């Protein structure tokens, strides 16, 4: 265990499936076959119009310098949590806590994947497969086939504390894949924290099956390494009266594509996805979200904010699909960017597709500069221009950050965003 090449799914340039027991073998072989049938995404694909897939699909990861945090206090430091550490995609037992937590069963895919029978069979690759229609997400299929490790979490009650996945990056050329499966049994409750860049190139899939009346809270921060690239997918299926809340902070990173695919299958459920991204210079950030309402009286809310400067690019592709019969759907989508100079760019493609008549759906996408009136008002009260600008940037991000329920975590995230602003003043 722990050899560096565990994270590397290739041998002599060709990928090989990780050693698997029966359940994982069938899921992985199925994914490999599906992938062989459709191929990898290419630049002319409509779904990749604003983000070039080439570096994500290339055989090797482009190297990425390791970011020096120089003694900074780690994120979530004050939160009592169960830590699971991966270094360049390889589980680090010494740095991790024992995988034991009241109300929760935690296993690693690498080990559980050797078994012939496992509960994860009903979720692993299953939600990912459901998420392939109507738009292909081949990088997730690739992950289902080849990811050698990840965590399998089954939550049976109220988790005694948050589970915290920490992704360290130490090797400049690492190319990591992780696949997590989280199943919340009816009425269960889990907070999952994630942070860190993980690798020079990171492909991560997380499938979350939220049972009836269960609640899943997710906060992640993607790591400050400037040159890292990441493609991540979250596939969530929501049962009756369940709750799903996910917030992502992204600062720095050459390329990030975060896809989130949510499917309401039970009535009266709630899903909120939010993101705050800030980039300066060589930064490309893509939030691609697809919400399918296939149940009655569900609420979905998307709040994505991007602060861009100096040539940084932001992309938002968000769709709300309301199927026939999904009455009383409340779908809300907001994507906004704040362009701090003329070089930054933002592309937004908000879409609504509705086949039910009694629904309330709205979307708004804006892109603009700092509000000069507000800036002058603050300055006229003696607040220096730089400080006033920072205040307005954080104010812009506020309604995304508000989606984090835990106030201590929200404050921690806000402090990180503020610190980033202070480091990136013109």
């Amino acid at each position: 265990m722990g050899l560096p090449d565990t994270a590397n799914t290739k041998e002599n340039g060709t990928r090989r499936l990780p050693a698997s027991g029966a359940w994982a073998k069938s899921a992985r072989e199925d994914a490999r076959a599906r992938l062989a049938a459709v191929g990898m995404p290419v630049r002319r694909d409509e779904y990749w119009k604003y983000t070039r897939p080439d570096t994500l699909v290339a055989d090797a990861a482009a190297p990425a310098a390791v970011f020096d945090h120089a003694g900074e206090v780690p994120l979530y430091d004050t939160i009592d949590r169960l830590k699971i550490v991966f270094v360049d995609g390889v589980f680090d037992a010494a740095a991790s806590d024992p995988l034991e937590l009241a109300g929760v069963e935690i296993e690693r895919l690498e080990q559980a994947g050797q078994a012939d029978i496992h509960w994860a069979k009903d979720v692993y690759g299953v939600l990912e497969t459901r998420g392939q229609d109507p738009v292909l997400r081949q990088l997730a299929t690739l992950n289902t086939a080849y990811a050698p490790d990840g965590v399998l979490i089954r939550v049976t009650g109220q988790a005694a504390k948050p589970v915290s996945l920490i992704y360290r990056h130490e090797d400049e050329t690492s190319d990591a894949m992780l696949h997590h499966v989280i199943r919340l049994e009816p009425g269960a409750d889990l907070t999952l924290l994630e942070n860190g860049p993980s690798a020079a190139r990171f492909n991560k899939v997380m499938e979350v099956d939220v049972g009836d009346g269960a609640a899943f809270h997710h906060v992640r921060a993607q790591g400050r390494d400037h040159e890292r690239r990441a493609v991540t997918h979250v596939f969530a299926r929501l049962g009756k009266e369940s709750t799903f809340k996910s917030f992502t902070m992204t600062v720095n990173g050459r390329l990030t594509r975060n896809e989130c695919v949510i499917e309401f299958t039970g009535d009266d459920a709630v899903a909120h996805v939010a993101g705050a991204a800030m980039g300066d210079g060589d930064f490309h950030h893509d939030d691609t979200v697809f919400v399918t309402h296939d149940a009655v009286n569900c609420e979905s809310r998307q709040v994505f904010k991007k602060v861009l400067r100096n040539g940084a690019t932001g992309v938002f592709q968000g769709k709300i699909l309301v199927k026939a019969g999904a009455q009383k759907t409340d779908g809300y989508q907001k994507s906004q960017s704040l362009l701090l100079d003329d070089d930054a760019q933002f592309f937004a493609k908000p879409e609504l597709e509705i086949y039910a008549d009694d629904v309330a759906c709205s979307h708004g996408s804006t892109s603009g500069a700092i509000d000069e009136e507000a800036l002058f008002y603050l300055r006229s009260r003696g607040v220096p221009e730089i400080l006033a600008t920072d205040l307005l940037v954080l104010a812009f991000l506020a309604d995304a950050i508000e989606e984090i329920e835990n106030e201590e975590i929200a404050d921690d995230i806000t402090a990180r965003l503020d610190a980033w602003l202070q480091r990136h003043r013109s």
Partner: protein
Amino acid sequence: MLKINNLQVKLEEEDKQILKGVDLEVPAGAVHAIMGPNGSGKSTLSYVLSGRDGYEVTGGGASLDGADLLELEPEERAAAGLFLAFQYPVEIPGVGNMTFLRTAVNAQRKARGEDEMSAAEFLKFIRAKAKDLKIDADMLKRPVNVGFSGGEKKRNEILQMAMLEPKMCILDETDSGLDVDAMKLVSEGVNALRDEGRSFLVITHYQRLLDHIKPDVVHIMAAGRIVKTGGPELALEVEHNGYADILAELA
């Protein structure tokens, strides 16, 4: 205190002269009022003095206690003691009123080389001032001016003035939108700040405010100039006869 000397201002974007040579001097401790028809340039004067973008000074100047105001950034003017209560206070979603005020108070203190106020000190200070102006805790927590009624916005301006303790206060139509009781409250707030070291320039359309805040001198501004200066009786004259007589006198 405030000296404005033949100030001429045009719009930066357009070839439109708005102030055509304003002369005005407000000594320390004095209260001066400016009245004048809509569009005569009163708000423009207050904006130019506080450093808003979009204007070009084409002649003349303005100073505060000898310091050339026009050379300073807006925040430096504030730190030097200038305060403008806006005719239209700006809404700032996402910035809490409290955070805003604490940032402003401490930024000014820092600029003047004073110690910053601790969170506890600040809280005590703001609670006392807010109480005087009947501003409730909820309004302090809400984002700056967002969802405030017209009158609440004006009271919030006076709260900021009370917190920042400037020496030169310009009030641009602070009375508009206020009900009778709020007008009294705001006037009391202003009067409480009257001090021999502090001056006021009160822009208004109505004599009513000047019943509460008694001016020493009243100026009439028309078409970008101060066209007449007198005592408090000038405001009464405007109240009764409008500007027609005054403007006719000049013609």
